[in-house]
């Protein structure tokens, strides 16, 4: 037993990498499907708030991320867009991150086309703006001042669905999909606390813990944290809609769960070998 523990203590880190890779690739290749129970929590809160909006509401989604965090945030964007369009809402897309503007175009055009929603009537992409929180603050006095034209150069005042949206208070809800700063902090601080617009969010798992205090105080109405949050939302959207195409977050959860089990196994094993072999080594050196 002791020899086995000593071997484990000296295990090549590449063995761990191979096992981690297998724990991710095998469930994906064999398309393992794990159930994703969605309890009462920030994911459901966001879903239910969107569900409670009256048809024809205008929701701003800010795409504050870039391709490096697409695996976590893009599935949220797709599921949220499907939900909003299915419920008959209009979407205004903005971005505080430069590449967010292209990512939003990809989501809105593909989901919009599949559900028969048209640009400028049901959705518009205003693109990227500099200034982060300062720009959000300025939207409080004039949306057009921040976005004189949309991403394709069409003037703000000639876009039909924007005629009733002159300031940020005219929005029914804001959802920020954020990979860092600028992102949720700016929207909660300026749009939520200052102008009273309900703010929801989705973020990478790394940054999720820092936004939980906003949920406790009611400064945010809901939060999707990482791939699990995205899978929760996909599950909730698919529950309520027939024939809704599956997203990419839900199939990834089986790989995620197995990878977590492998990591937990290594943590337990590492502690056991450390306590037995490591202690013996310490005693021998005395």
């Amino acid at each position: 037993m002791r020899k086995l523990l000593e071997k484990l203590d000296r295990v090549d880190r590449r063995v761990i990498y191979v096992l981690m890779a297998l724990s991710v690739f095998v469930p994906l290749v064999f398309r393992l499907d794990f159930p994703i129970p969605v309890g009462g929590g920030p994911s459901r809160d966001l879903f239910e708030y969107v569900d409670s909006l009256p048809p024809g509401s205008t929701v701003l989604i800010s795409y504050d991320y870039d391709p490096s965090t697409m695996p976590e945030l893009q599935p949220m964007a797709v599921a949220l867009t499907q939900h909003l369009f299915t419920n008959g809402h209009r979407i205004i897309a903005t971005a505080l991150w430069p590449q967010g503007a292209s990512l939003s175009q990809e989501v809105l055009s593909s989901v919009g086309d599949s559900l028969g929603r048209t640009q400028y009537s049901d959705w518009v992409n205003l693109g990227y703006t500099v200034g982060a929180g300062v720009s959000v603050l300025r939207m409080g006095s004039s949306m057009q001042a921040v976005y004189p034209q949309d991403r394709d150069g069409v003037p703000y005042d000639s876009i039909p669905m924007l005629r009733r949206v002159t300031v940020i208070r005219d929005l029914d809800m804001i959802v920020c999909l954020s990979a860092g700063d600028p992102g949720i902090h700016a929207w909660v601080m300026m749009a939520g606390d200052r102008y009273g617009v309900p703010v929801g969010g989705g973020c990478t798992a790394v940054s999720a813990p820092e936004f939980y205090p906003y949920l406790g105080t009611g400064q945010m109405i809901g939060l999707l944290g990482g791939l699990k949050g995205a899978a929760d939302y996909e599950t909730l959207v698919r529950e309520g809609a027939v024939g809704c195409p599956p997203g990419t977050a839900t199939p990834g959860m089986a790989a995620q769960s197995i990878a977590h089990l492998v990591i937990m196994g290594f943590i337990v094993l590492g502690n056991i070998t450390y306590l037995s072999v490591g202690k013996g080594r310490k005693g021998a050196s005395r």
Partner: protein
Amino acid sequence: MNWDLVGIWLGAVLTLMLYSFLYRDNPFYKFAEHLFVGMSAGYWLIYTIFNVLIPNFWNELTGAGDGTPDLLMVIPGIFGLFMLARLVPKIAGLSRLALSMIVGTGAGLGLISTLQTNCLSQVEGTIVPLSGVGTAGFLNNLILVAGVVCGLVYFFFSKAHKGAVGAAANIGITVLMIAFGASFGYTVMARISLLIGQAQFLIFDWLPTFSIIFGAGG
């Protein structure tokens, strides 16, 4: 030429080159790393010029957008040039003028909002009732209040952490450790999610291209 196919293959080959570092450092990894750094620098330079400088500065200054030149844009233009003065040691001090304006504006705009959002609202959030909320609510609120108070006691260094203060500080550090554990768990999830994203790309986007390329003639 199918450019989508080229893009998928470039992405896949570069992904494999970067992951090869897990075996050991090698020239393929180095090539992919340097390519990424160089491409990023070039991409951001061009992106900033065309998406920030031209629409927000040049078009406003020359009136290219609405036909009305805004000569006041000369002022931020000069401040922008001051930032570049850091490259010339003799006039590097000019950059401080630009920096002071950025810091001053940021502090002025953000001070009240930050205080309201991240301090006062959070304090308000910890003032919760302990009665009339049921057993679960009572326990939840008690943990919240005790955790916050004990966590703050841990960072109170003007009194030795002994006796009751020491006990509260110990509870505080335990609460902090639980928070760090939750944060670590989320970090692990995030990193695995990125690996899953790349794995999905390799399996569902890249592997099917083999049949397109090699199966076409068969």
